């Protein structure tokens, strides 16, 4: 589904990602762990065409997407769900969702997806006329995920879905991600330490200082004392 080969990314003068290679299989849930500020978000942004200077290969469904503009990548079925949500603050929930289906590839299935999203986030739909800027952190995060789903993407790149949320929301988000995965979508999550999410991972990567320092099954990670302590927050 997604194959990355020797990806390097730069912000101005600083070299963020260093020779990152990884792969995400169809229908899998892959989680990348690692401390903040070590390039996890940059990796997702690079995949989704939101970083200007990248070097390396990113293959999605066998097609090279490195360097494509973000709108093309969205059209191919890859969506980024941002850590800081990036909602449209002066639009209602419904308008935000509608714009989630802006990509040409998503327009046909807009109605279907809207219904799906409504069933996943019943609370959100109760307040579909509320301005995004007036929502609390947890609700906004839900909306961001819901908006991402509207794009009809097959690969969802979710950046810190549960960061800073109360446990009740974390549980809910874990459930939703499980639901998404059941629908056959591929999910690539970047996280710090959410046990509930790690539970469902098919594969775990750990990134430190812009490079992959661990790749393996969740059992391996859980059995590794050092990793447990530092990254899994256990």
């Amino acid at each position: 589904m997604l194959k990355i080969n020797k990806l390097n990314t730069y912000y101005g003068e600083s070299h963020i990602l260093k020779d990152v290679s990884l792969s995400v299989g169809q229908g899998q849930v892959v989680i990348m762990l690692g401390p903040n500020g070590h390039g996890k978000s940059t990796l997702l942004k690079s995949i989704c065409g939101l970083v200007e200077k990248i070097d390396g290969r990113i293959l999605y469904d066998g097609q090279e997407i490195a360097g494509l503009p973000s709108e093309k990548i969205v059209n191919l079925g890859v969506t980024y769900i941002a850590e800081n949500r990036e909602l449209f603050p002066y639009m209602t929930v419904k308008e935000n969702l509608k714009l989630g289906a802006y990509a040409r590839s998503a327009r046909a299935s807009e109605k279907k997806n809207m219904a799906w999203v409504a069933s996943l986030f019943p609370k959100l739909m109760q307040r579909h006329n509320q301005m995004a800027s007036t929502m609390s952190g947890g609700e906004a995060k839900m909306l961001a995920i819901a908006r991402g789903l509207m794009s009809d993407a097959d690969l969802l790149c979710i950046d810190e879905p549960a960061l800073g949320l109360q446990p009740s929301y974390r549980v809910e988000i874990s459930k939703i991600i499980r639901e998404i995965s059941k629908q056959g979508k591929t999910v690539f999550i970047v996280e710090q330490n959410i046990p509930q999410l790690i539970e469902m991972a098919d594969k775990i990567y750990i990134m430190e200082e812009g490079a992959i320092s661990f790749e393996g099954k969740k059992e391996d990670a859980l059995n590794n004392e050092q990793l447990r302590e530092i990254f899994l927050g256990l």
Partner: protein
Amino acid sequence: MFLEIVDVFISGLINGSVYALMAVGLTLVYGVTKAFNFAYGSFYNLGGYFAWLLLIPLTVVGGYYSVFFLAVPFFFIVGYLLEKVLIAPLRKYDDWEMKVMMLTLGLSLFMDFGYQSVFGPRIKSLPSIIDGTVEIGKVVLFQQDIVIFILSVSGMLCFGWVLNNTRTGMAVQAVAQNPAGAQIVGIPKDFIFAATFAISTIMVGFGGILLCQKNFVDPMGSTDIMIKAWVITAFGGMGSIRGSLYAAFILGMLEAFVGWYFGMIHVQIATLTLLLVTLAIRPQGLMGRE
């Protein structure tokens, strides 16, 4: 006395519609791209010269119909290129807003004196779209003013409708509110930037054609237009279309009534004082967001 006030009120309405026409493009561009276009007045004049060139030396068939028809692609291309060639490359600097102001200031100088060297320093007049007056009771109106009023108000309403009810309009708003978010959902941000410039250039070009046929094509008039548009935009709230519509009519009325009651010489200072006070109290303007 009552009749007089009605007269002044109508004068204010007409002023307001003219100002709305002047300012809406500037507001739009600022709202979406956060680029302040100091060369705005020069594009207004470009509209005037465009119409003059087609109507007088080229005597195009179809008169104003052809002018308006041809203006759409012409100004779209001009505005699009302007953004792509001059503004977009600046975005990579962190003080790009400043640089845009500087660049467009230089551009306006270049364009204004470009007109002078090509068309000469004298003003040019355009044939009027429509002549004659309409009498409603004792009030006499120019048909020309009515046309401008209707076109400008309906243009604004129509534009507002497009912005709020079409997919593209929503995309434009999305970019205005959160460019990064827009990119995430697959809105081609750079294209929207350029397209917004193009649309605003079409609007200012139309404004130029309409107002220059009422008044004149004045090669030096662009600074005045820029300042007027600027005052309205800042007063109404940078980037708020509705705000500038209100501001245009408030200022139009203010001008008419101050001019009538206190004398024309006080108009400019009254307008600018109002602006300064507004900015000091509410820097984001009437309807602007922080």
